[in-house]
């Protein structure tokens, strides 16, 4: 029998032998019998003795060879060779069928797939699957925009209109041609060319200048509002408790970028507009001479100067005319004097002196306007290190000079550093020199001095007449002293030692006995002789010590403020506290006479005291 081997036999029979019901029961011995079997290729069912009648021999013959083939299974296949007739026939048939029957197409295609298409989806491996997802609901959306604006237009196009238009156009062109021939310019006869109007945006804001300046001032005053309030109204209440001393309240500080490296060399208030003042900038340093500048500030705008005049060489002195306050005289380091006109725009001076017109050969230390002379011409004086005191007159477009006096009369090589004219007698003036001497001179005498005072040991930095008392003037010098003189007396009335070189001194306009001085240490000293004859009633540092030196000081003629210039190009304004501007207290019931006479009398009293004491000491 078939032998499958022993594999799986265990599983199949679960280890038990199952006997079919009709199995022979054999004995053991019979079981062990070996039975031989021989496998042959003979078909056991094939007949072994097939007899066939042979007509040839006329007898039944035994077929020797019997077909041993046993057929177990037959299956007719449906594959036919591609090139066989039947295949070709079928291919032809298949094509016709497709054209004819559309309904049958899927069937015909399916039935013919395996005959026609070599590739087909394997029915056992390939499974088609389809699914339907959820479709979102549909929604209608619509929108209506505003239609673009429309206009109506109507016209008639007729031959005569066209003709008219063209003739007009041609005429215009003719005229253009003529014009352009006259101007000799090439013409583009093309009408289509765009006419570009060039309107350059105008950056000119000169019509706006006035409102803009006002606005600037408003903004600045708003920012420095408290300073402005202090300037006007603040009175230091602490002064009531301080016996004699007073303080200086710093107000605005005036600075200009381009003037940072320059030294303030002169200050001058404008008499007519008491909020305007001029600053001359240059350098005192002999080795560092560069450009200079004239700046004019107003208290109403502390951030930027109103007028700026840059100059070629350092400016050393400045004076504003008393009545025509648009005329400004300035003296320079190179010896020139100039007159600027503030009304005119432009940085150039109106008048300028040059070598031919008698300019100084050394720095011009001071200039001063005088009253108009007999021909009503403006004139001013200048003093310089070359020893000349020169008077300049503005005649038409020129500066005409005339030497008033030569300081070299007494000593050769001496130069003048400062001068001041007497308030009442115009012709009288005092000149300070580099050597420390002060000369009293007159305009009328050009060859000699009226008097000479051996005033200081070093150069005299400033001399100023007392605004009230006709005989008194004050001088200061780098030898640390300030001296007050009676011009009739050869020796100083008062001497003050300030422990530092005194750069400038100025009388207060409100009192004949008070004055202020600045030193290079950065201190401002305010004196009032009627209160304290020996000491300052105020000594206040105004700038950082050892860093900046103060160079000039001026009192405002109207307001109780002073301006102080330093060597950094900035000007500081300070307000005098009440103690510093005391008027003498009157006794009860007595009406105090006001006015210059009082001041003069005050000074006179002091001087008398001094003279008496001197006389008594001499005695």
């Amino acid at each position, binding site marked *: 029998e078939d032998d499958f081997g022993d594999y799986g036999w265990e599983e199949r029979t679960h280890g038990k032998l199952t006997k079919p019901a009709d199995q022979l029961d054999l004995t053991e011995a019979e079981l062990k019998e070996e039975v031989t079997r021989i496998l042959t290729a003979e078909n056991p069912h094939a007949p072994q003795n097939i007899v066939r009648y042979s007509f040839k021999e006329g007898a039944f013959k035994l077929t020797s060879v019997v077909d041993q083939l046993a057929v177990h299974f037959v299956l007719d296949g449906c594959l036919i060779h591609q090139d066989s007739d039947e295949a070709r026939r079928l291919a032809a048939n298949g094509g016709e069928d497709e054209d004819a029957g559309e309904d049958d197409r899927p069937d015909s295609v399916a039935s013919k797939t395996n005959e026609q298409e070599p590739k087909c989806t394997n029915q056992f491996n390939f499974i088609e699957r389809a699914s339907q997802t959820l479709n979102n609901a549909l929604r209608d959306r619509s929108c209506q925009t505003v*239609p*673009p*604006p*429309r*206009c*109506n*237009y*109507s*016209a*008639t*196009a*007729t*031959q005569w*209109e*066209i*003709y008219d*238009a*063209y003739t007009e*156009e*041609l005429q215009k062109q003719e005229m253009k041609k003529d014009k352009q021939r006259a101007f000799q310019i090439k013409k583009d006869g*093309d*009408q*289509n060319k*765009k006419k570009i109007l060039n309107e350059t945006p105008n950056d000119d804001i000169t019509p706006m200048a006035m409102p803009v300046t006002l606005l600037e001032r408003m903004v600045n005053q708003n920012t420095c509002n408290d300073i402005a309030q202090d300037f006007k109204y603040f009175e230091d209440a602490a002064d009531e408790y301080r016996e004699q001393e007073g303080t200086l309240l710093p107000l605005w500080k005036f600075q200009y970028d381009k003037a940072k490296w320059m030294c303030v060399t002169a200050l001058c208030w404008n008499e007519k507009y008491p909020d305007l003042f001029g600053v001359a900038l240059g350098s005192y340093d002999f080795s560092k001479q560069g450009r200079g500048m004239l700046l004019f500030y107003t208290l109403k705008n502390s951030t930027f100067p109103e007028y700026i005049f840059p100059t070629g060489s350092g400016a050393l002195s400045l004076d504003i005319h008393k009545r025509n306050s648009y005329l400004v005289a300035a003296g320079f380091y190179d010896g020139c004097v100039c007159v600027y006109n503030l009304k005119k725009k432009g940085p150039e001076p109106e008048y300028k002196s040059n070598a031919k017109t008698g300019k100084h050969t050394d720095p011009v230390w001071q200039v001063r306007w005088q009253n108009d002379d007999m021909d009503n011409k403006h004139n001013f004086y200048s003093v310089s290190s070359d020893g000349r005191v020169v008077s300049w007159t503005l005649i038409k477009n020129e500066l005409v000079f005339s030497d008033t006096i030569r300081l070299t009369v007494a000593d050769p090589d001496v130069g003048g550093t400062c001068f001041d004219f007497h308030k009442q007698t115009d012709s009288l003036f005092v000149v300070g020199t580099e050597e420390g001497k002060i000369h009293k001179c007159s305009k009328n005498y050009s060859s000699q001095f009226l008097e000479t005072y051996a005033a200081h040991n070093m150069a005299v930095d400033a001399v100023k007449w007392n605004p009230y008392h006709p005989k008194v003037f004050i001088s200061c010098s780098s030898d640390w002293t300030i001296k007050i003189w009676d011009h009739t007396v050869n020796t100083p009335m008062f001497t003050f030692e300030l422990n530092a070189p005194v750069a400038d001194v100025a009388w207060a306009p409100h009192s004949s006995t008070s004055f202020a001085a600045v030193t290079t240490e950065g201190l401002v000293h305010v004196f009032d002789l009627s209160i304290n004859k020996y000491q300052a009633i105020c000594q206040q540092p105004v700038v950082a010590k050892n860093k900046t030196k103060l160079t000039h000081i001026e009192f405002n003629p109207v307001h109780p403020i002073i301006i102080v210039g330093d060597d950094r190009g900035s000007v500081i304004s300070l307000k005098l506290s009440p103690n510093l501007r005391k008027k003498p207290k009157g006794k009860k019931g007595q009406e105090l006479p006001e006015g210059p006479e009082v001041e003069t009398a005050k000074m006179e009293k002091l001087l008398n005291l001094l003279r008496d004491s001197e006389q008594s000491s001499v005695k």
Partner: protein
Amino acid sequence: MAETGEADPEEVVKKLAYSFPIVRHTDMPEEMKEEAIALCISAFEKCSNNNENTAKMVKDSMDKMFGTAWHVVIGESFGFGVTHEAKNLLYMFYGGSLAICIWKCC
């Protein structure tokens, strides 16, 4: 003959002189106007004497360049009254005898 001979060159000169366009009325912006005028002139040159083709050409080009629904009328004698989209009308003369009106309206 001499007169006509003389007239002819004059006419030719006049025709030449008239060959520039005169814009009668327009509210188009500059660019659009320039383009439209250039387009018209080129169309006239191409299909001269056939106003229909010229108009068609102009209309198609304007549609492509500036959007749909342009209308073009070319003729020598007509009156018209149209509603047009603002800033989309050009009415001009050309060639001494032709008037062309272009407007846009949907």
